[in-house]
């Protein structure tokens, strides 16, 4: 186990270094310049040169990279070229928003998707199965921003059940939950569609195997077959899709964040890319990559708990 952990840690560091390096050079390769962005309409040749020097952008790129890595190793990811604030401060302030949305959205998605997938697989070919699959197809096909706008129009505007704005800095747990509810439901529904489809197909695959047929022949109850034998075997692929969509929803919830006017990691990184705020992009991607690796590692350990065959690998 400790060897496993050490390997995971090494993998984490390597991934993070790789992500930051790619982000560093990619951001500088695309056209655009933070100095031009900030000077805007009043950019003159002098002003651009002065600001570039002030921001350290006039140094050779390799030197900039070495300086950045040197600071990064001591935990300093630099300051945002636009606001002058430490990059990590702004990123850290958007993490709780993203985490709350991703966790609650995934909770809803699992609570809806997994049972629907099981029910669908156990009644393979029935009208319930077809209804679930059509519903899931719609959930996957409609873009999440469209579902979000329809939800705002229907549930917030017409029915008046939720606020239009998906975030509030007012104190109080009720207020926070009330504002979070609609974006979480929308994210949950769109992810639930994937989970339902995958749970169904994983279950169907296991249900078609010989040991299930033997269990049935031996007279094991259908309930026990479904939940003890089949589900446990189908859990690994289901967990895999959950881990992938969790990481996805952390950063890629930009559309939900825009529609519901919520802060978050995705929109912060997006804003930083548009402003060519190099340090902010790097810090944001570092956190995002860290989260993805962390979630994957956690689920890797979970696979071993669920399926003893995977422990030795």
């Amino acid at each position, binding site marked *: 186990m400790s060897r496993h952990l050490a390997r995971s840690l090494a993998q984490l560091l390597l991934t993070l270094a790789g992500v930051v390096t790619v982000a560093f050079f990619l951001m500088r390769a*695309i*056209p*655009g*310049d933070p100095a*031009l*962005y*900030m*000077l*805007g*309409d*009043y*950019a*003159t*040749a*002098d*002003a*651009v040169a*002065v*600001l570039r020097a*002030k921001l350290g952008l006039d140094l050779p790129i390799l030197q900039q990279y070495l300086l950045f890595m040197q600071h990064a190793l001591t935990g300093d990811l630099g*300051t945002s070229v*636009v*606001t*002058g*604030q430490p990059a990590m401060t702004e990123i850290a*302030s*958007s993490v709780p*928003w993203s985490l709350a949305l991703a966790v609650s959205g995934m909770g809803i998605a699992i609570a809806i998707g997994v049972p629907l997938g099981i029910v669908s697989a156990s009644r393979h070919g029935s009208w319930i199965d077809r209804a679930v699959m059509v519903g899931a197809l719609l959930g996957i096909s409609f873009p999440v921003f469209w579902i979000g*706008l329809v939800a*705002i*129009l229907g549930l*917030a*505007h017409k029915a*008046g*059940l*939720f*606020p*239009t*704005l998906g*975030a509030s*800095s*007012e104190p*109080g747990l*009720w*207020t926070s939950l*009330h504002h979070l509810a609609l974006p979480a439901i929308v994210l949950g529904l769109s992810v639930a569609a994937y989970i339902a489809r995958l749970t169904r197909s994983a279950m169907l695959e296991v249900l078609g195997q010989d040991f299930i047929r033997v269990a049935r022949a031996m007279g094991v109850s259908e309930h026990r077959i479904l939940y003890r034998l089949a589900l446990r075997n189908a859990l690994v692929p289901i967990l895999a899709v959950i881990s992938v969509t969790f990481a996805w929803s952390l950063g890629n919830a930009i559309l939900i*964040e*825009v*529609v*519901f*006017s*919520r*802060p*978050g990691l995705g*929109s*912060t990184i997006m*804003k930083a890319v*548009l*402003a*060519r705020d190099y340090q902010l992009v790097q810090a944001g991607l570092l956190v995002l990559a860290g989260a993805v690796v962390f979630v994957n590692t956690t689920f890797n350990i979970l696979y071993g708990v669920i399926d003893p065959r995977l422990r030795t690998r």
Partner: protein
Amino acid sequence: MTMSNNQREVQAAGRRRALQAIGAGGALSIIPGWVSLASAQPLERLRIRIGADISILDPARIFQVENQSVASNIYNGLVKYDAASNKIVPDLAASWTVSPDAKAYTFKLREGVAWHKNFGALSSDDVKFSFERVLDPKTGSAYRGQIADIVQAIETPDAHTVRFVLTASNAEFLHKVTAFNHGWIVSRKAVTELGDKYNLNPIGTGPFVFAQWVPGSEVRLSANPKYFEGAPKVQEIVLRLIKDETAAAIALEKREIDVFFALQQPEVIERLRRTKGVKVLERPASSTLNLVLNTSIKPLDDVRVRRAIAHAINRKALIDGFFRGTKFEANTVFTSAFEDNTDDVPKYAYDPGRARALLKEAGVSNLRFEITTVGLSPYDKLVVPIANDLMQVGIQAKVRVLERGAYQQARSSGNVQSCVTSVVGPPDPSAPLVTLFARKSFPPGLNSARYDGVEDLLKHVASELDAGKRKELYAAILRKTATDLPLIPLYADRLFMAHSDTVQGLVQNSMFTVQGYPVSLRSA
């Protein structure tokens, strides 16, 4: 963050109500409890929608309307534009005198003006510091070029007198010290002590004090009870970031916000005009959107080709159709927000026949013409009908849409054939003229036409002391630029803002900012 007792009571009442609801009737009645909580809104808080997050609140480097809107509630200038009339009126300076040759401007500051957050009293030294900071190249101020050639020295004979000595006579100098961008006065003590932190912890003298920034979500300003013109009528301003205009419209209709700032989409404007309890304000802006033609690239160096392009574009159809009448027609880069605007300039009516004839006269056939534009609405879309118009007269028009950073880079290179440009700012007549037509604004500046036909006139107009003659000189510049046509004004912008009927006293200015000072709220 400090909350007033009143707010706390309202929130506590909301919580009590929610708890009672849960206790009384189970799951279903939780929902009405929540709703009453959401609508519990202390009267004295003004909630304003902004469309983008803030980033820079240091006046030396400030840009973008969201930053400027926040700053306009925090800071003062020596003088300011009256929001309704655009006349220059006193702000921190109670009075001022101009020397007969207009080479020295002396301002008498108000007494007893205090900086926010106990940074002491305003003095003439703060004023000197504010402008010298902009002039110092090390500050990296975008506005250095606005005053660098004009100001020779700033003197402070006493704590409440500040004198600007200019390099040459300048009758328009007050525009350079109005409350906007570099004209906002900062505290020497605050800037020095706060250092890098100052940018997002601004200290001003204005009616509101910067309280809190929640990145990606909102900015909070609290009322300054000691404001020299009297405490504001609202206790707090919350500037709420809502990017999507439709979502913002619904939030306004549901009274989750009070003011919809930077309202732009024609469909949303139409929707809000029909909504009960919502008022839509509008006002001519001080900016035009222009199609800039690079006069250093053949055959655009031939004025006949530039005029042919102008005749080929159906600008009226663009305004009536694409923008559903939410813009004004324009023949010069001045809008009706400028006193010195004139209509007595050459005009280029939509006339495809004339366009073809002019191209033929210039000996140009199969002209390949590329319009570079920025991938932001509406600039990415409005060029399509324009390109289509140009095709009709035999010009092979092509549209190149670039992401904002790439667009700025392409435009500042000076190598694009044509691009779209707008100069948003205060109603300072020299601002659009110098920025678009002066030699010092050649790329990376906005004069990507590389046009220098009014260089002498621009020099004369600032030093002309007679207002009547100055007006004539402005008219001459506008006529000359409309004749030479280094750029084609596509439309004069129009600013829209909407508010719920609970908002009283809101005055829309022509500078694309929103100010909470005159506003009071009444119950719906």
